[in-house]
């Protein structure tokens, strides 16, 4: 569906995208995860024929990005970043407007149903909440029954409930066997929705693969958190030679192998050790990003 080789985009002296490769297969949800300014939107906007590349090769649905623009536009659906439709048209009229621009189109009512906006059908776009606006955007992106759908930060700025509603709509796209390219700076979103993830930072992909593969390859394994541990607990773990970090009276103990957990439990059962609770945490994409860049996703956003 998508083949990208050594894509570069330069603005004057700023390099927004510095040589990325990407292969996306039919029917998968592929997420590009990274902080603001990483180059995610620039990359997908080149694939959507919105921006011109500086160099490299991009093929979408078998067409070259520069020669095949007309053909590509007919067969892709796009939810652009910070999407807006026409304020003074209703949900239904907006979908009809964009549908009218394509020869191949899905009936408006079907799309309204797909994004669950039946009771907002005749509401002006202006009067919709952020989450509902994004759902209209997804419906409009689907209007030409595209083979490939780009969703550029579909949940940015939404509250958690609205975000989950958008996720449902994306899952529905996947169940219809659409290929979806999703950009996001929420690692949870990428982890929950995607078949493949590319983590992007400063114009480069720093990790590629399924969420599981990335975590296995770059993550630091599981961590056992001992909350409210006393000094004796810390001393016991240290003398047993386990790798750990201490903060605010909590111990974060790395689970290096199968034996780590029983060993820790036995250390904690001695009489002088006290603690409040114990929990086990898996590694996340957030941890991977932190490990690879030394920064938290949220910090880079500032």
């Amino acid at each position: 569906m998508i083949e990208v080789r050594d894509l570069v985009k330069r603005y004057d002296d700023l390099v927004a995208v510095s040589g990325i490769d990407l292969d996306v297969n039919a029917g998968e949800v592929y997420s590009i995860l990274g902080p603001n300014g990483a180059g995610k939107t620039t990359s997908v906007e080149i694939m959507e024929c919105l921006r011109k590349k500086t160099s490299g090769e991009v093929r979408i649905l078998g067409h070259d990005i520069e020669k095949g623009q007309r053909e590509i536009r007919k067969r892709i659906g796009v939810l652009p970043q910070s999407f807006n439709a026409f304020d003074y048209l209703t949900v239904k009229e907006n979908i009809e407007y964009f549908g009218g621009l394509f020869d191949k189109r899905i009936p408006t009512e079907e799309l309204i149903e797909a994004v669950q906006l039946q009771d907002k059908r005749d509401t002006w776009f202006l009067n919709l909440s952020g989450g509902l606006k994004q759902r209209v955007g997804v419906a409009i992106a689907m209007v030409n029954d595209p083979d490939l759908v780009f969703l550029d930060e579909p949940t940015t700025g939404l509250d958690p409930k609205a975000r989950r509603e958008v996720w449902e709509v994306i899952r529905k796209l996947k169940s219809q066997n659409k290929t979806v390219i999703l950009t996001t700076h929420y690692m949870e979103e990428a982890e929950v929705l995607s078949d493949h993830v590319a983590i992007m930072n400063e114009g480069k992909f720093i990790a590629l693969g399924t969420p599981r593969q990335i975590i296995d390859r770059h993550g630091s394994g599981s961590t056992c958190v001992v909350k409210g541990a006393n000094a004796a607990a810390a001393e016991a773990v240290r003398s047993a030679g386990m790798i750990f970090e201490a903060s605010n009276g909590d111990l974060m103990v790395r689970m290096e192998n199968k034996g780590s957990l029983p060993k820790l439990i036995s250390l904690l059962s001695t009489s002088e050790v006290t603690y409040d609770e114990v929990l086990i945490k898996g590694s996340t994409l957030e941890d991977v990003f932190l490990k690879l860049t030394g920064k938290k996703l949220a910090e880079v956003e500032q």
Partner: protein
Amino acid sequence: MRSKHVMVDLKGQARSFFRVKSNLFWVFAFPLLLIIIFGAIFSNMGSESVTLNVQNLDEGPGSQQLLVALNETGMVKLKFISPTTDLDQHIKDNSLAHVLVIPANYSSNLASNVTAPVELRLDETVSTSGTVFNAVNGVVNAFNLQMAGGEESIVITTGSIVQKRFTFLDFFVPGIIGLTIMTTCVFNVQGTISRFRTNGIFRKLATTPMTPFEWLLSRILWHLFISFLTLAVIMGFGVLIFGMNMSVNLPVVLMIVAGSAMFSALGMIVARFVKNEETASMAANAITFPMMFLSGTFFQLEMMPSYLQQVAAVLPLTYMSQGLRDAMVYDNLAGAYFNLAVVAVIGVIFVILAVLITKWEEE
């Protein structure tokens, strides 16, 4: 070019345009307010008395009664011209705007029940003419009522000191049509482009098969419709409320087409060169404001100092308003077509420029 794409956008505009309350204001209420306010200011300046020059050729008592009554209205101050003066020359020499002539046989006609005419010569382009006419007309009507129960013993024959009888509104209303078309087209088109660029609608449209040219064409066509609506509304108001006499002919139609396209394209050009939404709106103001006041909408160009007249000569609205006036009111077809040619040439240049510089992509 796919006409289907143009139709889709036209339909979208037709559905949404009047849902925006401010559009209703600018297209309907604004021009009517201007006409009412300025019509009132300029046609009722008669709170102070106005000088009416009188040449009384009659020596009987009838004319004296008439003049006493006129004096008592307090609306006009009478100033007498000697019966032996050459009136036409006197008017010219003294730039008189209002002259009443009472013919020699006035009193005897009245006495013998023959219709007695008085002649009122007015320069209708002077705003006080209405006051003078009302004063004389009121007195004559009162006399008629008194003497003959409403039968017209005295009639006023009006003569114009300029070629024809034009009121301030005749001058003003075509200018308001031009002005409203300018503001609607420039502000709407500029506002829409700036807003669509800021809120991302252009980015979305860029991912569809519609081309920028198709979109521009639809916007120009829609504003053409709005411009004709403006013409109909203002003309209807002028004819129904003020009893004005205006005609719509070929040069009027062509002028609306050319002017509307010219100002829509101007809005596009402003929005393209000034990227920031607020700055663009200020730029549109900076361009339309001088035209509003210097293009002879509210004041005649001849009243302005010559350097301002030179400024007016390079403003497109000057030609549009003057052309509309020539065609709608003055029956001056040569003037109308000259002004139309100027607007058409500027319009073609603006539209070509707008088409060349408008594109979806930012980079």
